[in-house]
């Protein structure tokens, strides 16, 4: 499956929300789900543990209808953030057209953010992908928390955004920055429509 099928006039875009456990990936998807008119969204599939933390992954299909004559579908996935679900993360990452990294702005989570970002790069490298070629957007989530608990965006950006990719401050619970992030990653991904051979994460198929 490729991003665009010119013969069938279809655009199918797979976006993976990556990040450490409890950073707000599923919350992002929930917010999007609630904003999308019913006829545009498929049922959100979420396999979760009893404590509501993503065990396997969330999947939200969005049908954007016909755009410029192309039937356009977005598929949003989250990966489980917990360290021990490395295999699931790799699986979900396969075939991704773009990655959104949801960082947890809490000061005590800084280390986990860095590790998760390294994990993302390691997984991409394992699949033979130059991380620099994969569209990536970062969201610094939970910026609504008290100042004393969080790291501000500039500091987070210094720690995580060594590639200088687009970033957004977020409060996924209330929706701040959620669509901006989605819009931003979509724009990056759709740029590839004009270069058919731009790489994507190896689909393994």
């Amino acid at each position: 499956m490729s991003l665009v099928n010119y013969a069938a006039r279809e655009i199918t875009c797979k976006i993976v929300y990556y990040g450490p456990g409890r950073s707000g990936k599923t919350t992002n998807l929930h917010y999007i789900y609630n904003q999308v008119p019913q006829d545009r969204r498929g049922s959100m599939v979420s396999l979760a543990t009893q404590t509501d933390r993503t065990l396997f992954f969330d999947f939200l299909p969005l049908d954007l209808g016909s755009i410029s004559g192309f039937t356009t579908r977005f598929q949003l996935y989250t990966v489980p953030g917990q360290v021990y679900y490395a295999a699931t993360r790799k699986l979900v990452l396969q075939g991704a057209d773009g990655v959104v990294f949801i960082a947890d702005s809490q000061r005590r989570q800084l280390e986990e953010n860095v590790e998760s970002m390294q994990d993302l790069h390691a997984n991409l490298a394992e699949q033979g992908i130059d991380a620099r070629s994969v569209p990536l957007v970062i969201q610094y989530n939970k910026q609504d928390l008290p100042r004393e608990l969080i790291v501000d965006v500039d500091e987070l950006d210094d720690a995580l955004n060594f590639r200088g990719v687009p970033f957004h401050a977020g409060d996924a619970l209330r929706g701040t920055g959620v669509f901006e992030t989605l819009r931003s990653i979509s724009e990056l991904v759709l740029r590839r429509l004009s270069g058919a051979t731009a790489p994507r994460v190896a689909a393994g198929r």
Partner: protein
Amino acid sequence: MSVLLDGRFRFDNYVVGASNRLAVAAGRAVAESPGASYNPLFIYSPSGLGKTHLIGAIGFAAKQLQPELVVEYVPLDDFVDRLHIAISSGHADAFKQLYQRVDLLLLDDVQFLTGRRETQSEMLRIFNALQGSGRQIVMASDRPPSEIADVDERLVTRLAGGLIVDISLPEYETRVAILRSKCAESEMTFATGVLEELAKMPCGSVRELQGALNRLAAHAALGDRPVTPQNVRAIVAGGRATPAFGRAAPAGDSSDEFAGFLSDISVAVAQHVEGWRVRLGERVAHWQRKGYSTAMLDRALALTEEADVDALDAAFASGVARLEQLEAQAVLLDPRLAGLDVFRDPERVAEAEARIEQAIAAHDPPPAPWPAFTIETLIAGKSNQMALRAAEASIEAPGARYNPLFVHGGTGVGKTHLVHAVGNALRRNAALSGPVACVSGSQFVDELIAALQDGTVDRWRARYRAAGALIVDDVHALAGKERSQEELFHLFNALHSAGRQLVLASDRPPSEIGELEARLRSRFDGGLVVAIQPPDRALREALYARILVDRGAGAEPGVAALLAELPVSGAAEVESVVDRVMHMARSSGGHVTMSLVRRELNAGGAATPVSVPAIADKSFLDAEKVVMEWPDLDGRVMEELR
């Protein structure tokens, strides 16, 4: 005439772009020959994208082309009203008959069929009657048939039974074209870049676009500031009628947040989708619908550089045309060949051609070697042992050792026997990919002339091209015959490159065949050229011994050795000598004795022709010249000539 068919809606004022090209093409096809293809034609799109214009154009064009055509445009609601009136006034049958007389029925807003069971069953009957008599139905709806809720399954099947096409949102270029065309119609002019800027803004329909254009026009007429590309967005957004235009609404207004996102995606797609890829994609879809494999075009789609879509498509189309030709030819030969994969991929034209050649060869096989000449009946001797060994090597590994094998020698030395024997042995080789073609040079020339005369050269050529091995006896007969040499040259190359065995025989080596093209001569020389000498004494004795036994001459021991004393040119002469001595023996009433043979030898030798009245036509002595297998003997009258 319905207002819709009064000529306001025509094909020539309908802007065609990638978003509606298929629908327009199908519409034109229907207008040109209603009922012939795409019946029913089902057009769907969200409102405001030109469905009604298109079906109006179909009706108008059909009427222009065939004025006698009964064309009826009816929105579904009107249809329902008329039906109700007809039923309540007791004229339901007249209603049905009225519609059954229509040649082209244009039915708009079909989505309103939902839940109207009575209308559905009436429509089903009318559909059956119209389609049964080859009349055309065109429908327009805001959704595909499968999504029209609560409709009888049988009716859905009929709605979907022809061609379903959609009209999607026009892309940027088409939007510009539409805006320009609307401006021209209303004689409006704007500064350069204004229409382009307006077209860049996402829109939900052509009507919306028209609305935005109207707003610009109003602003230009009344406003104090001129309309420039820079203020287009502000002007349009200022009077925004629908949320589809402009940027995202402020956070918190949920539906607007998604609508804003959708708008931005639309802009991004419009910006980044390249026109040439879209056009190429359309061609891919077109050929795929026709059942062709499009790997060749798919590869071009994956290129980073812009491909020449027209050239690619033209090349593909010519491949398809050739495949169609080949398939038609194949079906004539063997109906089972219809629809083979090989006829559905323009990259496999060569393969398809090979299939045709095989089919032709199976249907009309090339001449085969004469069955009487086998390798077992050849007598080996010093004079032919090299040729024999080469022949055996060729039989053992066809095409691998000596290719071509060129055998030359004087008349009667057994070249023909040898090459036909190779042919017969090769026929027993199950691994051979086709029949063994065995033809004499003169027959080759004659066949070509006949094929040229009948215009069947392709077919004639194909018979030989499919051969698993080719044997040409008396190849010197091609000397001076340019066209035959050319055909043999191409045939030689085709078979040689495919690893098929070639065996040639001539009365002289290639270098001595006059008027032979150098390219053929060098190819003949390229394999093994081997001579068969006139039989030596030992071979002569063996030949005489066998022929005397074969003929039942009852010769005294030693006769064969005695006869072998005299040199002969070949096996044919040996047979001639045996016939002569047998004739003499019969006329003297005895057997073939030593003394009789001595007398014969002393009388002038085998080389001297003696009067043998009984054998008037020497060709009867020459097994090579006797037809072994008469085709269709049952149908022939055998006449005895005295």
